[in-house]
C-alpha cells in the first residue's frame, strides 16, 4: 500500500485508469488534488512520513493482537464460562424414593413425582388475576396468593407437593412467572396398616421412623441435575447444550409382612383398643419355620401420611420398643429348662402348696389352695406360680438365667427396626431371693412382645431359635435384588424337650386349662396365658396398676405354622389373659391359618393328665 501514495510516477497512471481517454497523449496527466500536493514534498519527508505511518499502523496492529491474545488466551475461558452461564439454566431433578412393599409386592409406601409451584413476583404481571386463577387449583386462599405474588423477592413458594394433573392444568393457563420444581410426594396407601413398621419421612424426605429410617440409604437414591441451554424466554433450546446428570432413584425394600394379615391384625387390635379397657395392645405374628414377621401391629397405631399431625407419643412401634412384665407366659421358659436339664418330665407329679415363701415375701397361686398333686403339665395348664417356682429352684438361678438368655431375653433380636428394646433381665448373681422367685413366673423381668413371640417360635420350631426378621430383600434402582441373609438358627433346647413343651402347652387350651378361649376351630393350638401386674406409674408400685394380659401360642400344635403373641395393657381391669388376650389370639390364628390354606391334620388332642399321685418322700 505505501507504494501508491509515495510514488509520484504512479499517480498519473492511476488517474489515467479512471479516465482512460483523457491522459493518453498528455505529458503531465492530471491527478487528484491530494496527489498534486504530495508531489511537492521532498523524498526525505515522504520517507519519514511513511515510517511514522508504518510504525503507527504496526503499533495499532500489535495493540489489537495483544488485546486479542488477552481476550482469547488469558481471559478466554472466563468469558466463555460467563457466556455459557448466561445461556445455561440448572434445574434440580429429585430422585424418586424407593418403595416399601409387602411380601406379595403390594405397596406399603411409595413416591410419585409432584411439583412445588413457585413464582417470581417480578415477572408476574397481575398478582390478583394470577392468584384468582391459581386459588382453586392449589387450594390456597386467593388473598394469601395475592400477597405472596406481590412480594419483593424473586422466589416465592405457592404450594408444595402438587400432583401432576394440577401442574398440567396450571401449564394450560400459560401464566407468566409461575414455574415448577420437583417435589416428590410420599404415599402410604395402606394408611394405619403396617404404619408402625413402615415408619414415615420428614418434610425433607428423610426417613424418621421404622423401615423408612432404618433403610434410608437404600430408599433415598441420589438427586440429579438438569443443566440446559435456554432461550430468551427461559425455555430450554431443543438442540442446545444439555449437560445433565440424571437422578438415581432409590431402591425398594420388600418386607416379610403379609398386608392382608397385617390388616386383619390391625383391625382386631383396633377393636380391642376401642373396647375401652385396653389402652395399648400389641400383636406379633411370626412364621415358625423362618422366624419371619408375618404381621406386627399395635393399637393405637398411626397413619404415616398423617405423622406430622399425630401425637409424637404414638409415633413408635411398641411391639419392639416397649417392654412389659410378661407374667405366666414366662413359665414355658422355666419348664423347658427343667425338662432339658432332666429335673422333670410332663408327667412328673409334684405336691404343690397354695403359697411359697420367697425371701421376705410369700408368693401364692392365683387362688390360694391346699396342696394339690399336680403333674408338670397340670402346673402349666393351671399356671401354678408355686409349682413353677419349685421347678425353678431345681434348675437353679444361674442355669435359669442361661436358658432365658438363650431364648433371647435381655438382648435385642436384631430386627430391622430402629429403637428396639433389649428388655430387662438382671444377672442371676444379683437376684434377691424374692426376685429369684418372681423371675421364673415372669415378674421382675421385662420383655418386648417380639421377644416373647420369639421364645414360643423356638419351642414351636423344635427347639431351634431363629431371630425374627422383617425384610426379605432389597432391590436396587438398577434391578439387582439382594436377598437379606437369614439368621442362622441356634438350638436352645433339644427337639424332645420342645415336643414335650408343645404337648404341655396344648393342655393350657384344653379342658381344665386356663385358656379354653384360645382354641381355634378345627386346629390344635398350643399356648400360654399371662397376667402380669402392671406397675402403677403414680406410686411406682403394683397397687392399682392393672394388668398386662398376654397370650402367646402357636398352631397347628402338631405341625406349627404361626406363632402369635398378643399383649394388652389394661390399667383398669383385673381380667386375666385367658379371658381377654386368648380370644384375640384365636381370632388372629383363625384368619392366619385359613388364609394360608392350612389344612387341619385331623388328629385329636391327647388326653392330659393334670393331676397325679405325688410320690411320698
Amino acid at each position: 500500500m505505501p507504494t501508491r501514495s509515495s510514488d509520484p510516477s504512479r499517480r498519473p497512471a492511476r488517474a489515467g485508469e479512471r479516465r482512460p481517454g483523457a491522459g493518453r497523449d498528455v505529458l503531465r496527466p492530471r491527478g487528484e488534488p491530494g496527489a498534486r500536493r504530495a508531489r511537492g514534498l521532498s523524498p526525505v519527508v515522504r520517507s519519514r512520513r511513511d515510517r511514522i505511518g508504518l510504525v503507527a499502523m504496526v503499533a495499532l496492529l500489535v495493540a489489537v493482537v495483544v488485546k486479542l491474545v488477552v481476550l482469547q488466551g488469558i481471559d478466554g475461558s472466563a468469558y466463555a464460562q460467563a457466556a455459557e452461564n448466561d445461556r445455561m439454566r440448572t434445574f434440580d431433578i429429585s430422585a424418586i424414593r424407593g418403595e416399601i412393599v409387602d411380601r406379595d409386592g403390594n405397596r406399603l409406601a411409595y413416591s410419585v413425582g409432584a411439583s412445588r409451584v413457585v413464582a417470581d413476583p417480578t415477572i408476574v404481571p397481575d398478582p390478583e388475576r394470577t392468584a384468582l386463577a391459581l386459588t382453586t387449583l392449589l387450594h390456597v386462599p386467593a388473598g394469601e396468593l395475592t400477597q405472596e405474588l406481590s412480594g419483593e423477592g424473586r422466589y416465592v413458594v405457592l404450594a408444595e407437593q402438587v400432583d401432576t394433573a394440577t401442574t398440567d392444568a396450571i401449564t394450560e393457563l400459560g401464566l407468566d412467572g409461575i414455574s415448577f420444581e420437583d417435589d416428590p410426594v410420599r404415599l402410604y396407601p395402606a394408611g394405619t396398616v403396617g404404619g408402625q413398621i413402615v415408619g414415615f419421612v420428614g418434610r425433607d424426605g428423610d426417613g424418621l421412623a421404622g423401615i423408612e429410617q432404618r433403610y434410608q440409604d437404600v430408599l433415598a437414591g441420589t438427586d440429579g441435575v438438569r443443566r440446559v441451554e435456554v432461550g430468551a424466554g427461559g425455555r430450554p433450546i431443543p438442540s442446545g447444550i444439555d449437560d445433565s446428570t440424571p437422578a438415581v432413584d432409590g431402591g425398594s425394600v420388600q418386607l416379610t409382612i403379609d398386608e392382608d394379615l397385617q390388616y386383619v391384625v390391625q383391625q382386631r387390635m383396633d377393636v380391642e383398643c376401642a373396647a375401652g379397657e385396653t389402652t395399648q395392645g400389641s400383636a406379633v405374628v411370626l412364621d415358625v419355620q423362618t422366624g419371619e414377621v408375618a404381621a406386627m401391629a399395635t393399637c393405637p397405631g398411626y397413619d404415616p401420611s398423617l405423622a406430622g399431625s399425630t401425637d409424637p407419643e404414638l409415633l413408635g412401634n411398641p411391639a419392639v420398643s416397649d417392654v412389659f412384665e410378661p407374667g405366666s407366659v414366662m413359665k414355658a421358659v422355666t419348664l423347658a429348662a427343667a425338662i432339658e436339664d432332666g429335673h422333670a418330665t410332663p408327667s412328673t407329679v409334684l405336691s404343690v402348696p397354695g403359697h411359697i415363701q420367697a425371701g421376705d415375701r410369700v408368693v401364692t397361686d392365683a387362688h390360694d389352695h391346699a396342696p394339690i398333686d399336680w403333674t408338670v403339665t397340670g402346673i402349666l395348664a393351671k399356671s401354678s406360680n408355686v409349682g413353677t417356682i419349685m421347678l425353678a429352684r431345681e434348675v437353679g438361678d444361674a442355669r435359669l438365667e442361661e436358658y432365658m438368655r438363650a431364648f433371647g431375653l435381655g438382648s435385642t433380636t436384631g430386627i430391622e427396626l430402629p429403637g428396639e428394646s433389649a428388655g430387662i433381665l438382671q444377672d442371676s448373681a444379683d437376684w434377691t431371693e424374692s426376685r429369684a422367685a418372681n423371675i421364673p413366673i415372669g415378674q421382675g423381668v421385662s420383655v418386648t412382645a417380639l421377644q416373647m413371640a420369639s421364645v414360643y417360635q423356638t419351642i414351636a420350631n423344635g427347639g431351634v431359635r431363629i431371630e425374627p426378621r422383617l425384610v426379605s430383600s432389597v432391590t436396587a434402582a438398577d434391578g439387582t435384588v439382594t436377598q437379606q441373609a437369614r439368621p442362622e438358627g441356634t438350638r436352645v433346647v433339644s427337639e424332645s424337650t420342645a415336643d414335650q413343651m408343645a404337648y404341655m402347652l396344648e393342655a393350657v387350651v384344653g379342658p381344665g386349662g386356663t385358656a379354653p378361649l384360645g382354641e381355634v376351630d378345627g386346629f390344635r393350638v398350643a399356648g400360654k396365658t399371662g397376667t402380669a401386674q402392671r406397675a402403677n406409674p403414680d406410686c411406682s408400685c403394683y397397687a392399682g396398676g392393672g394388668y398386662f394380659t398376654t397370650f402367646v401360642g402357636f398352631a397347628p400344635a402338631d405341625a406349627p405354622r404361626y406363632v402369635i403373641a398378643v399383649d394388652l395393657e389394661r390399667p383398669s381391669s383385673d381380667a386375666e389373659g385367658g379371658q381377654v388376650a386368648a380370644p384375640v389370639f384365636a381370632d388372629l390364628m383363625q384368619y392366619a391359618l385359613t388364609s394360608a390354606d392350612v389344612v387341619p391334620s385331623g388328629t385329636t388332642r391327647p388326653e392330659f393328665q393334670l393331676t397325679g399321685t405325688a410320690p411320698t418322700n
Partner: protein
Amino acid sequence: MSATARVQTGALRARSSAAPRTAARPATRTSPRTSPTRRTGPVHVRPQLRLVTAPVGTPTRTRRTAAPRRRRAPFVILVVSLLAVTALALLALNTAIAVDSLNASEQRATNTELAQQVERLEQQVTTARTPSQLAAAAAAAGLVPAGAAGHVVLGPDGTSVVRGTPVPATVPGADPAGG
C-alpha cells in the same frame, strides 16, 4: 509484501527522476490493460514497465494479460458455487437437525406425559387394592368375611373326610370384628 513493494518503488523512483517523462508516458498507455492485474500487485506490473520502451510489445502484453482472465472465470464460478452449495447444505442440515431435535423434545414431553398418566393410573390401582378399600368394596357388594374353613380331604382309597368345621357366613354387617 510491503518489503518487495518498497524495493520496486525505489527502482521506479530512481528511473522516474532520471527520465520522468518517458517513464510516465508508457505507464499511462498501458494502465487500462493492466488494471485487472492490479490486485496481484506491482510484481506483475514491473516487467511491463521495462518492456514499454518498445511500442511493438503492446499486443503481446494484451494477449498475456487476457489469457489468465479467461482461465480464471470457471474456477471462480466453481469456488463460488461450491461455497453456495456448502452454505445451502449446511442450512439444510441444520434445519433437519433442528426439526429432529424439536421432534425429539416433543416426543420426550409426550413420553413424560404418558409416564405421568401411567403413574396416576397405578396410583388409583394401588389405592383401590389396599385391604381397607377392598374390605369396604366387598362389604358394599354384600360380602362378609369368611369364617372357619372346612377342608374336604381325599384319602388314597377315594374316601373323603371333612376337616375343620365350616361355619355359615354371618349376615352382612352383623359382625364388625370379622374373621
